[in-house]
């Protein structure tokens, strides 16, 4: 589904990602964890080219993302992204947030887009909010709308960039429930998270980054119970 080869990313002289190679297979749920500043978010943002890699390649369904610009937009349509701070469009209603991109980008008819949007809103438990504006929603509700908005494009892969980090504690669960549900439905997911519970229970694989280096890449059970490296052990001791 998505293949990363020898990925490097520098901001000026600061090397944020060093020689990362990995692969995410179809239907797989991968948690990306690591201390802050380890390059997790940058790595995720390289997967849909919100950050341009300094070198190396990101290949989605056999297509190299460093190709011409047109293709990148097409490929981005297949990759949904959920941000830490939601980034809903504040001047559009919840329903319009969900229907805008399918109508504009894929040329879907309004009736069809709205029907699909309503189905998605029902799935994230927000059917009653379709006419509301984002500013009237709680953080958890915003994030569920953001997930639905990404799903409205019917992506093959969903990227989550710390989706629960900006939420009040009591709202984390409702968002994680939606994500678990999504994982169960067979969606391919890459999740940068500090929720170790989610990584352990839901993820098929855990990638541990530290100082821009991919330190461990394996099954959650192995990683959490018997981490191979000193750095991962240190990290787990601090967060668990």
């Amino acid at each position: 589904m998505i293949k990363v080869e020898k990925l490097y990313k520098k901001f000026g002289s600061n090397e944020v990602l060093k020689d990362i190679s990995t692969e995410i297979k179809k239907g797989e749920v991968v948690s990306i964890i690591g201390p802050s500043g380890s390059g997790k978010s940058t790595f995720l943002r390289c997967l849909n080219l919100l950050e341009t890699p300094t070198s190396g390649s990101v290949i989605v369904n056999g297509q190299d993302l460093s190709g011409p610009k047109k293709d990148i937009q097409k490929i981005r349509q297949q990759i949904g992204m959920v941000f830490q701070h939601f980034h809903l469009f504040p001047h559009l209603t919840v329903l319009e947030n969900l229907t805008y991109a399918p109508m504009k980008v894929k040329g879907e008819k309004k009736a069809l887009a709205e029907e699909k949007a309503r189905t998605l809103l029902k799935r994230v438990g927000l059917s009653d909010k379709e006419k509301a504006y984002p500013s009237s929603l709680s953080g958890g509700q915003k994030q569920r709308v953001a997930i639905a908005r990404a799903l409205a494009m019917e992506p093959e892969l969903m990227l989550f960039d710390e989706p629960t980090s900006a939420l009040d504690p009591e709202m984390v669960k409702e968002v994680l429930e939606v994500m678990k549900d999504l994982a169960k439905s067979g969606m391919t997911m890459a999740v940068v998270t500090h929720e170790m519970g989610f990584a352990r229970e839901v993820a098929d694989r855990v990638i541990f980054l530290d100082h821009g280096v991919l330190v461990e890449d394996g099954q959650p059970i192995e990683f959490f119970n018997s981490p191979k490296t000193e750095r991962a052990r240190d990290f787990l001791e601090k967060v668990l």
Partner: protein
Amino acid sequence: MNLDFSQIVPYIPFMLEGIWVTLKFVFFAIILGAILGTILALFKIGSIKPLRWFADAYTSIFRGTPLILQLMIIYYSIPQLTGYDISPFLSAILAFGLNSSAYISEIIRAGIQAVDKGQMEAAQALGIPYRAMMKDIILPQALKNILPALMNEFITLTKESAIVSTIGYLDLMRRAQVVGSDLFRNFEPLLFVGLIYWCLVMGLTVLGRLFERRLKLSD
């Protein structure tokens, strides 16, 4: 005190007509300024260097020289250079529209840059093309932030429109002068059109507030 407002009464219809004459070119100048200003703002934030330089140079020239000079250059030099006898009306629209676009482009540029960067990223992540993203996602949000500044620019333009009287365009201001020289009394007609200018600006202010309130609905 030598004041007699009854003397201007016969001239009132003549002066009131000036409202329409002033509004007519102010309206077109605002439209021209807004369209050009938006385009220039997009040049300024875009990644194409020559366009960016052009927009910066344009702003620097039109902000760096007096409006009355620009008006005179357009009105007097276009006939000299091209032989086309440009009307005061068209000169006024061009001078005010071109001048205003320089200011408006700066307002819009600041407004766009004040929109949360995440909005652009969210649009990009959804695969929304640049044009649609600007038109439907970024500019509407920018507009909300810059409305007060934009209103201010329109008010300034409406008031400063009085300098077209210098090229003989029969606007409100010019009409007050005509009446003044006819009557040998200047204070009354000047005060009268002053009141009209004030009413026009108040009208614009109220309109702006209403518009602002409508845009605030999503908050």
